[in-house]
């Protein structure tokens, strides 16, 4: 029992425990239960009829290339609502090498002020 206690006592943060081996055992148990529950589903369906087509609220389904959500369209709501931050950041990264050295000189000047006033 003491070995189990030492195993469980590692990584104790004071508000629960986060031992990775225990976490993996719990995750495997959850997967097993999910797989068993999935096996209770209905296995009979007719191929080739309307039962296997995807339902898009009555909209027509285009070919596969147009239906894939592209990478830059994900998280559109987040980036659009915070557009003012992302525009400032995007303008900051100009690709011009003089600006890179200018940022270095600015940071050096700020550090001089901070360390000099100390």
């Amino acid at each position: 029992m003491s070995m189990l206690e030492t195993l469980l006592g590692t990584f104790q943060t004071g508000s629960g425990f986060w031992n990775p081996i225990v976490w993996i055992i719990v995750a495997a148990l959850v997967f097993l239960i999910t797989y068993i529950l999935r096996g209770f589903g209905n296995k009979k369906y007719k191929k080739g009829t309307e039962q296997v087509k995807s339902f898009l609220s009555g909209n027509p389904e285009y070919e596969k290339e147009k239906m894939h959500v592209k990478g830059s369209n994900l998280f559109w709501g987040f980036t659009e609502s915070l557009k003012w931050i992302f525009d400032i950041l995007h303008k900051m990264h100009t690709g011009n090498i003089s600006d890179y050295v200018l940022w270095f000189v600015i940071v050096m000047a700020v550090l001089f002020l901070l360390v000099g006033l100390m």
Partner: protein
Amino acid sequence: MIFNIPFIAVTALVLIGLYTVIFRRNLIKMVIGITIIQSGVNLFLITLGYRENSVAPIFTSLPPGTIVPEGMSFPVPQALTLTSIVIGVAVLALMLSLIIHIYRHYGTLDAREIGGNEE
């Protein structure tokens, strides 16, 4: 006061070099600016090794009447400066050969047009 002139020259060289790298658009001028900063730092290194009224630190060819070793200047900063000059030459050669490739691809040497890339 006259012995402070090398240090004032070092500060002036570094500031002129930084100005050239930040505010000039031609890539070759940026490389010249980096060379000016290199010259400034090398001058600073070698000024540190000077003693007043001293001779070169070579034991076999001293002028008569030199006190050994207080009459000789320090040899270590001279070795450091030589190393730094050699590194500077290698970096300069690498930068210029990269500029030749960039000119063949883009046809221009303007830093703002080359740098305007994707997001």
